[in-house]
């Protein structure tokens, strides 16, 4: 049986992880490679690296970092942040990323999804959707939730799938950082509207939240950052818990 995936997300700035971590065993808590290896050993199913480096100049260091990560870990990983062109994607894939994720650039220029799918295949194209409830409708937002769009989230999810997205990373900006649980309603709506896997993100605070998003919203994977970084939830414990709830996971 296909297992539900647990995906830690690492925010990267200038080649370093930004959010602090609570891994006292790590020599260098800011080293993304060391943290990635740690998660790999703990049983993470995939990893996502989100580059929030502000300047184009410094972003060039990302390719080197991706290469370094690919050398050291043997589970799949996705790289996102600031990807605007076929060339950007080509560099990341050549350096060993398994998938890339685009967000704002897809909203600005939806044709980019078609272009990327045609060049590299849908299997490595993740389209991230940031969503927020605006006037009781779930809508797509960009720039970390600061900019609203007129796009309805479910419509956008269908459109990106038709354009060639191979997977959707859905982050609820309503829930992100609250630790009050994932956004079950919109994740469920998106998941039943598209034929590609959906990764739920934003709001994980305890193990029960993971069980809920898998059981109630049929998410294919769940992503979280700080609860893993600060060891509020250890991945092996989470997997054991999910397994006890009859949710198939890789243990």
């Amino acid at each position, binding site marked *: 049986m296909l297992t539900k995936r647990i995906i830690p997300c690492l925010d990267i700035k200038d080649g370093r992880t930004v959010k602090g971590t609570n891994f006292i065993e790590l020599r260098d808590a800011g080293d993304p490679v060391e943290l990635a290896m740690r998660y790999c050993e703990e049983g993470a199913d995939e990893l996502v690296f989100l580059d929030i480096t502000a300047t184009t100049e410094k972003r060039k260091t990302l390719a080197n970092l991706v290469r370094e990560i690919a*050398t050291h870990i043997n*589970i799949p990983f996705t790289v996102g942040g600031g990807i605007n062109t076929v060339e950007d994607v080509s560099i990341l894939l050549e350096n060993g990323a398994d998938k890339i994720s685009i967000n704002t650039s897809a909203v600005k220029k939806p044709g980019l999804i078609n272009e990327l799918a045609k060049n590299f*295949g849908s*299997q*490595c194209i993740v389209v991230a959707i940031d969503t927020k409830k605006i006037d009781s409708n779930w809508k797509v937002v960009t720039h970390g939730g600061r900019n609203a769009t007129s796009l309805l989230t479910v419509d956008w999810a269908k459109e990106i799938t038709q354009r060639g997205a191979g997977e959707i990373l859905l982050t609820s900006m309503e829930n992100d950082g609250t630790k009050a649980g994932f956004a079950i309603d919109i994740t469920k709506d998106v998941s039943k509207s598209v034929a590609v896997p959906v990764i739920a993100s934003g709001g994980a605070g305890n193990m029960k939240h993971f069980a809920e998003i898998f059981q109630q919203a049929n998410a294919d994977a769940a992503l979280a950052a700080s609860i893993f970084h600060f060891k509020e939830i250890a991945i092996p414990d989470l997997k054991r818990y999910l397994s006890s709830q009859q949710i198939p996971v890789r243990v």
Partner: protein
Amino acid sequence: MKTRVCIPDFGMGNLHSVERSLCRMNVNPVVSADPREIEKADKIILPGVGHFKKAMENLVTLQMIDVLNEFVLVNKKPILGICLGMQLMADRSDEGDVAGFGWMDGSVKKIKVNDGLKYKIPHTGWNQAMICKDSPLLKNIPDRSEFYFLHAYHFIANDRADVLTETIYETRFPSAVARENIFGVQFHPEKSHATGAALLQNFISY
């Protein structure tokens, strides 16, 4: 003498993750688009992601078809196909409606599911390989071990005797196959952590 492993570079995706996996086990493969490197090799790993038809076209353009056929069918040296690389071993594929190498008796079809809400395409993530038949490739690999899958097409074997493992995604499909010196896996051992590394090591030691 050290085994010479060649990974033919025919322009179909992430060859370097396989290369890196082998480097971690101190095998330094040759990644090359030069057909002569195939002739010189003791073993070949044929990875690949992407479109079947495009892959066959690239192999023709790079003049790799004949050397690979000779390597596999005449010299009977070991080859491991991964993901698309496994599918290319089939007689033909629906993806582009073209012929493959024909080393494995069967064809490649798009994954069909009845419950599209539960079973998303591509089949993405970790799933179990249920062992049907012993093989040196599966040495020390427990039954129902999990491997990482990412594919929208899968191989349908005409001869059950070729099937080493099966995986269930609504229906059963062959996830590892073998016939004499020819091995193929639908999953990505290079992305399947320790179990995947063990499988690659088995192929290298074979």
